[in-house]
């Protein structure tokens, strides 16, 4: 009996907590801040790659190209897997 009451109380608490907690209730741009923090070092890196010395246009191009290709590979892999596994549906 005691256990059953605990379970019921927990269930009510769980539902109430889920209903009460709104995501970001004050409406702050938290997502923007988080993504900004993640990507800010990349901006520093790109600036360092373009402006730092010693510099070689060929290597800078290779670096930028590699980063773009890897980014494309990541996005491509997600799309490819989606289409490939979509065969089953």
């Amino acid at each position, binding site marked *: 009996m005691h256990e059953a009451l605990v379970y019921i109380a927990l269930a009510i608490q769980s539902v109430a907590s889920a209903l009460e907690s709104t995501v970001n209730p004050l409406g702050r741009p938290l997502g923007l801040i988080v993504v900004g923090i993640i990507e800010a070092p990349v901006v520093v890196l790109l600036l360092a790659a373009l402006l730092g010395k010693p510099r070689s246009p060929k290597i800078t191009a290779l670096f930028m190209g590699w980063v773009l290709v*890897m980014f494309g590979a990541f996005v491509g892999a997600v799309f490819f897997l989606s289409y490939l596994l979509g065969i089953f549906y």
Partner: protein
Amino acid sequence: MTDNVDRMLRPLMHTSREFYPFVAILGLTFAVSVYAYQQQLMYGLGVTGLNDVTIWGVYIANFIFFIGISHAGIAISAAVRLLNAHRYKPIARIAELLTIVSLIMAGMSIVIDLGRPDRAMLLITEYASRFMYSPLIWDITAVATYLVLSTTYLYLPMRRDIKVAMERSTGWRASLFKRLIPLYEEGEEATIDRLSFWLAVTILPVMVMVHTTVAWIFSLLSSRPLWFNAFAGPYYIVAAVASGIASVMVIAAVVRRIYHWEDIIKPDLFRGLSNFTAMTTLVYLYMMMAEQLAALFAGPSGEAFVSEEWLFGSFAALFWVMTTLGLVIPFLYMLVQAFRKDYVNVGWTAAMSLMLVIAFWFKRYMIIVPTLSIGVQQVGIYSPTWIEAAILLGSFALPLLLYTVLTKVVPLIELEVKHDA
């Protein structure tokens, strides 16, 4: 020194007889997991032990585990570059490779967990409308950035080593290596060194954000007992660093033995890593104690209830075995070793590291399953099926397979080319 270069390049130039059966066993294990996954695709997640209550299980435990392992590579490699910790240079690339393989596996774990993996593309097509609200999207952003930067960090400094390998090989190998270094120009090393320095600077904060955003996937769900936690980010990062560095020690000990690199990967190096792992494990144990004490002593009823189940209830056996065998004993061993002057036993250190790695996998399981199954009042309703077991086995076979194959393309130890000339 030239002799040393040949020895370091040996995995690229020669393949032992044992290599093929090893790869075959891994390939077979992976094939079984592909069959199991095909069953999951055909019949849905109903073939797993997951259900409407326990919506996450071993796949998500795997995801957190592999993200954690991926921290080691960059932590070690960046330390070599930024802190001039050159004595760790022989294992820097071994660790970087581990990072990349682990990140690939982490991504795959998410896809495997999806009931409709054909919708994975929504993560990208709906990115703009979701990134303001979804910790999952933040995590995808961090993981993608980390993967791109890590592959760049691995590839750029490796070009000079591939060039050396190309010069010392003939036939198809020379041709393959030549294709791997397009636009190579003499003297590019200075520019690449500068880029690598900035890459190291950049990757460190991204690395921290990767595991912080993983932690937020759980800790921002306020209705789940033991997940809603302000220090979840640091808590996860400490586990990641400990398990990652322990994994590097295991792999380094294995390749050291296989390729007879005892004089290159010196015992002293294991001693340093072991000391650091002991310290991070201690911090982790402390955080775990703080978490459980707070939940038991004054937590809301849900928190206290789940904590009680962890420590004294249906998950107690798993928890105490994991904590004692997997965390406390390795910690004590590494601590005792740290206090013994000039002493390190590489074999035992690797064995203890392996126990740590296994324990940290189970810890990730413990984070997810008790909260989900007990949090909605049905103790013990999740138990993985053979499909999940097979996929889980495959998810360990695949990274091993990838790593083994990559050792035939990637020079595992950064060469000291300038000194050789």
